[in-house]
């Protein structure tokens, strides 16, 4: 029972539910233990499945499990089904492992927090949702997780909601994500329309062997292109690429463990996961991959540039995350799916480590993240410093550390890719060059961060200096584990060229492992590989060296000179190229005006006054009418009775017109028919006087009679209706002209 797949997301979700309902009743120790335990239990189950059960079936599509049939609608059955295959299993492990670590870290970091249980409930909720996303076997299930992590992200960013800025940041994240979600849905709809199914294995199968997804849709591009594009919009929202990255820096308003878990290691990688998952679909339309790669590369470079001028520790790391996600997208966008996932894997370790170091440093600096006030912390925070150094070297791509291998895989793949075909062959090298520049930038700004925070004299005030201290064990322990991961996790992805040196052949362990899920790894010639490794190392060392020139041991002369020379440019970069302001101008202000107008006219006037007030007025009117009647005054009752009777008579029994007489004249013959005869239970006799002398000429029981006139002239005919019982007679006159 405990080794079923659905326990993996279920345990954290149950933990979240329990903590939300009953968390306040327990002590902090219990809350923290329970929360960490659920995620750790998920990790154990996932590891058990991953290492023992999965290898047997990984070539047949992995372990799949149907929980229950959610609903059937028409031709499609949507099941709540989970699948652990090579790709999702790897991500499961990452999420649960790092998730568990962060839970432990949070126990120490959030120790002074008032709303303790709520935080852990939300963390558990996030883990559950992320695991649902990763393990989902059909697009609706993935979407559940997708939305769930968006929700958890919103809740956690705005955790300290009493500050308006935090709440706004949460809102911004959610809304931007929502735009991405719309793209996800559009992609889903297109795929469903083309293939008729929502199950991922069936979709991938159709992509590999069928023709539905290759059929042209709009602008000559196949369905797969548009679906891929829409999915990428969703991915851009979730994984903070241009143009939907703006929420991630603001998300730093949340507690640091949140930033580490969600906005570095796991949630933001959901977009990359999605593209990798849909690899077969993307391979049908290389143009979509080109878009992914280009956007990724441009984002990587752009974010790196912004990172040059940020003065808040976590903001630097936020832009770094955006940039590194761009790297991952370049990886998957060049058809190098294994490479992109590899970087996701290593990035999780070193970025989480960097964020937790940030937490540690901010904890020491009494909550401030301003690096202009830091410096020389290496002496006071030994453990933090060492962990930071390892992670820093990893992210810069210094050899042996994990980042080196993963970045190298991506860079090499960019130049060596053949996935685009002839028309778009220029994309690969272009993207590679951009990425190289971005890597240089990465090295530069991360080193800047290191130098400004940990080296040189301390620029903080005395009071703050006094408080600087290393973090407790509960915080240091996860740091160390992550540092170990940052250092060693690269070795699962050692490229073939290096493997030959130690006598092993073939592709890297990771590429081989992921092959059943994402397809064959990219073949990169050894020459390009060695060149790539050399260039990467060069870039990394140059970046660090350049940063040392500017910032080694604090702000140095070249830094000041640069700022003096180009003050406006520096300000522009520091203001993140004013993209938020641009969005505000283009989108937010018009929407706000629309809202205001709608509120004033529709809400206030139409709805409140007319619709609601109107009903109230009508109810009041009805009441008045009833009150009028119920006075107990008999004469008033009688008066109403008589008036009502009059009204009835007026409406229902209008005095009828005298009745219609129809005359048909042929030659000298006239036939009169009385239409609209009065109804009477008694027998009526009709007599007709045709020549106008008053004496009836014809009598009949039916209201029709005929008469032949002797000559032309103008006659007045009369019809008499007699009632024998009541002795009444009615007369109708009609003029007849005979020609």
């Amino acid at each position, binding site marked *: 029972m405990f080794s079923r797949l659905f326990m993996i997301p279920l345990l954290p979700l149950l933990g979240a539910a329990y903590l939300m309902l009953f968390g306040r009743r327990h002590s902090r120790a219990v809350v923290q233990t329970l929360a960490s335990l659920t995620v750790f239990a998920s990790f154990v189950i996932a590891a058990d499945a991953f290492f023992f059960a999965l290898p047997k079936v990984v070539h047949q599509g992995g372990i799949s499990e149907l929980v229950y049939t959610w609903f059937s609608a028409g031709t499609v059955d949507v099941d709540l089904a989970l699948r652990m295959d090579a790709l999702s299993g790897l991500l499961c492990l990452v999420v649960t492992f790092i998730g568990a670590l962060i839970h432990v870290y949070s126990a120490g970091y959030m120790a002074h927090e008032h709303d303790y249980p709520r935080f852990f409930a939300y963390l558990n909720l996030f883990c559950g949702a992320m695991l649902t996303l990763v393990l989902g076997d059909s697009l609706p299930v993935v979407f559940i997780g997708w939305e769930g992590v968006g929700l958890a992200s919103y809740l956690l960013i705005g955790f300290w909601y009493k500050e308006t800025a935090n709440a706004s940041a949460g809102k911004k994240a959610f809304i931007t994500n929502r735009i991405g979600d719309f793209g996800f849905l559009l992609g889903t709809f297109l795929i469903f329309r083309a293939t008729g199914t929502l199950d991922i294995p069936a979709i991938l199968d159709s992509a590999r062997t069928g023709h539905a997804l290759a059929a042209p849709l709009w602008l000559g591009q196949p369905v797969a292109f548009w679906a891929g594009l829409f999915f990428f919009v969703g991915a851009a929202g979730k994984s903070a690429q241009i143009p939907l990255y703006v929420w991630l820096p603001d998300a730093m308003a949340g507690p640091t463990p949140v930033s580490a878990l969600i906005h570095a290691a796991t949630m933001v990688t959901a977009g990359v996961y999605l593209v990798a998952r849909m690899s077969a679909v993307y391979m049908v339309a290389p143009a979509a991959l080109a878009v992914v790669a280009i956007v990724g590369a441009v984002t990587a470079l752009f974010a790196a540039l912004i990172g040059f001028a940020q003065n808040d520790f976590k903001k630097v790391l936020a832009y770094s995350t955006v940039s590194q996600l761009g790297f991952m997208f370049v990886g998957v966008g060049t058809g190098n799916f294994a490479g992109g996932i590899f970087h996701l894997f290593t990035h999780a370790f070193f970025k989480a480590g960097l964020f937790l170091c940030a937490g540690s440093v901010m904890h020491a600096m009494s909550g401030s993240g301003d690096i202009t006030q830091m410096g020389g912390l290496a002496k006071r925070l030994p453990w933090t410093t060492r962990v930071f150094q390892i992670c820093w070297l990893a992210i810069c791509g210094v050899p042996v550390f994990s980042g080196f291998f993963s970045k190298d895989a991506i860079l090499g793949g960019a130049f060596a890719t053949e996935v685009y075909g002839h028309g778009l062959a220029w994309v690969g090298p272009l993207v590679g060059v951009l990425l190289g520049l971005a890597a240089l930038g990465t090295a530069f700004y991360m080193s800047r961060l290191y130098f400004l925070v940990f080296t040189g004299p301390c620029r903080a005030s005395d009071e703050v200096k006094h408080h600087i201290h290393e973090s407790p064990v509960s915080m240091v322990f996860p740091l160390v584990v992550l540092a170990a991961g940052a250092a060693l996790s690269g070795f699962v992805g050692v490229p073939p060229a290096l493997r030959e040196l130690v006598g092993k052949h073939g592709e890297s362990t990771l590429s081989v492992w992921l092959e059943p899920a994402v397809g064959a790894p990219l073949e990169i010639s050894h020459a390009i590989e060695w060149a790539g490794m050399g260039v990467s190392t060069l870039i990394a060392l140059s970046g660090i060296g350049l940063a040392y020139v500017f910032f080694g041991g604090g702000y140095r002369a070249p830094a000041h000179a640069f700022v003096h020379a180009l003050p406006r440019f520096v300000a522009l970069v520091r203001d993140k190229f004013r993209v938020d302001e641009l969005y505000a101008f283009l989108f937010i202000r018009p929407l706000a005006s629309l809202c205001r107008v709608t509120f004033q006219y529709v809400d206030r006037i139409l709805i409140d006054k007319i619709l609601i007030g109107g009903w109230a007025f009508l109810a009041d009117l009805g009441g008045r009418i009833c009150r009028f009647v*119920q*006075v*107990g005054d008999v*004469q008033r009752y009688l008066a109403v009775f008589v008036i009502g009777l009059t009204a009835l008579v007026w409406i229902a029994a209008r005095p009828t017109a005298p009745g219609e007489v129809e005359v048909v004249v042929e030659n000298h013959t006239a036939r009169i028919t009385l239409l609209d005869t009065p109804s009477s239970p008694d027998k009526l006799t009709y007599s007709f006087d045709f020549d106008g002398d008053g004496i009836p000429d014809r009598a009949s029981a039916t209201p029709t009679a005929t008469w032949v006139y002797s000559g032309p002239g103008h006659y007045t005919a009369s019809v008499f209706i007699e009632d024998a019982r009541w002795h009444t007679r009615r007369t109708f006159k009609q003029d007849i002209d005979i020609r």
Partner: protein
Amino acid sequence: MPGYCYILVSLALFFIGTAGVLLRRNALFVLMSLELQLAAGSLALLTFSRGLGDEKGHVVAFFVMALAAAEAAVGLAIVVSVYRTRRKIDLDAINELRN
């Protein structure tokens, strides 16, 4: 005279009686108007009875008269009784069911 003339008179009497019932405050006036209405009805009955040659109309008018007498007696007794306790007989002043 043609019958319809009598019917018109009967109608006029009846509706004058109705107006009286609706528009006079004094209970006695209401009773008087009621008698008017009854008389009007009897007139119509007798007119048709004469026209149709059937004496049953007379018999019914006879009963109507007896009923009117009984009703007037009891009604007046009630009015007097009410007057004794409340010292007024305005119909809207002796209203217990107000609002």
